[in-house]
């Protein structure tokens, strides 16, 4: 095999790896980018025959692909009118913050419940008849109760039980949070745009490894703060996802009912009754239908308007959040 053939094989392998790493990118953009990188490599080959050095200078194909995705995804979505593209980007963004939210929820529930137990333990001597573990047949109520049928099964030991349970809950919550944050940090570092000293735009998040290392020694209040920060970083994503979900579903339902109105004229419309306002009334219509023959036209117009407005809001949000992310990167 000649040196030239070996060189060409290496280039093709490099471009295949780049192509494989870019499979999630729209075909036209991917091909354009590959063509540009191919052109760059062959241009370099005219100055040097060291293919390995040329490919090394261009950069790792997977890192390059990741950088391309991060650079172009938000810019593409922020200018797209496609509900699918906007919804997908919003969902991805929301999911990237879902871990933060789940950690925050665990922290709030665990520490919140433990805090409640401590408070009730301290209040027991003040309200001995109303605080305790109250049994009602097969159900229990722990905490404050004023029901005349209450029967406190913990008696004078409630303070001790509540203190021990609170301590165990704080310990278990801390353990769970540490494990979740370590796992979250590993995922985060794996998804970092370009690791190390790269020039790529990365997410405005702390280093995954550093987070994983430092979290081992964190006290519970710092874990709570960390969880809150994680949740806040995902709020933008959740906000956009909620806007997309509400806007597209409501707009879609309106358009759908507009189309179905001629098929089910008795059951679709704007029904006003004691229960409120309903768009569809199934199987037996109740209340007064106020839209009449204009329903199809009004619902269709309103549906399109809502989808259009949702698109507009999402584009605006993505553009501004994208700028914010880049400025923080």
């Amino acid at each position, binding site marked *: 095999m000649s040196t030239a053939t070996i060189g060409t094989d290496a280039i093709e392998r490099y471009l295949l790896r780049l192509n494989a790493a870019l499979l999630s990118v729209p075909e036209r*953009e991917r091909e*354009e*980018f590959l*063509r*540009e*990188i*191919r*052109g*760059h490599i*062959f*241009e*370099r080959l*005219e100055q040097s025959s060291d293919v390995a050095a040329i490919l090394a*200078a*261009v*950069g*790792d194909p997977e*890192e*390059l692909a990741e*950088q*391309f995705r*991060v*650079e*172009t995804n938000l*810019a*593409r979505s922020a*200018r797209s009118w496609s509900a699918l593209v906007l919804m997908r980007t919003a969902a991805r963004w929301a999911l990237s913050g879902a871990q933060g939210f789940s950690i925050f929820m665990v922290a709030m529930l665990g520490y919140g419940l433990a805090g409640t137990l401590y408070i009730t333990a301290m209040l027991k001597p003040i309200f001995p008849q109303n605080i305790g573990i109250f049994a009602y047949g097969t159900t229990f109520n722990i905490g404050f109760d004023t029901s005349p049928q209450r029967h406190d099964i913990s008696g004078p030991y409630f303070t001790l039980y509540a203190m021990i349970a609170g301590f165990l809950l704080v310990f278990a919550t801390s353990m769970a949070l540490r494990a979740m944050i370590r796992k979250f940090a590993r995922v985060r570092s794996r998804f970092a745009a*370009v690791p*190390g*000293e*790269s*020039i*790529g735009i990365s997410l405005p998040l702390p280093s995954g490894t550093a987070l994983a290392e430092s979290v081992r020694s964190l006290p519970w209040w710092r874990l709570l703060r960390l969880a809150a920060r994680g949740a806040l970083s995902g709020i933008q994503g959740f906000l956009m996802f909620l806007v997309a979900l509400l806007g597209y579903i409501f707009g879609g339902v309106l358009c759908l009912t507009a189309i179905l109105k001629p098929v089910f004229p008795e059951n679709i419309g704007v029904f006003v009754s004691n229960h409120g306002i309903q768009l569809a009334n199934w199987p037996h219509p109740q209340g007064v239908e106020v839209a009449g023959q204009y329903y199809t036209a009004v619902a269709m117009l309103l549906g399109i308007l809502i989808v259009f407005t949702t698109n507009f809001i999402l584009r605006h949000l993505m553009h501004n959040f994208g700028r914010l992310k880049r400025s923080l990167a």
Partner: protein
Amino acid sequence: MYSSTQGNGSQDGKWEAQLRKGCLELAILASLSRGKLYGLEILRVLQDEAQLVLAEGTVYPILSRLKQEGLLDSEWVEADAGHPRKYYWLTNAGRLQAESMARSWASFAANLTRTVEPLLNREE
């Protein structure tokens, strides 16, 4: 993907890498203010004039984003060498953005230079 040309310790290197990273977009827009250039030509300007040594592939994703943002336009041109080249140039919006960024940079650099001047004088 980025190699710093200066910097003493790893902390200095990281700081300098972040600093240069923040300036890359301005440097690309500024290099295109002189006219139509293709990827490799932009890289040469960045390396020779701005001393920005970076992985060569790095510049293309940024060019793609700037084009999507409407700051650049591009066209493929068949070159004599046989490999088509994608030439980029600034749009009106890109020129305005580049000028605005350049003004911000000049003002920021001048102010910061005054602040760090005592440190530089001490070195002398």
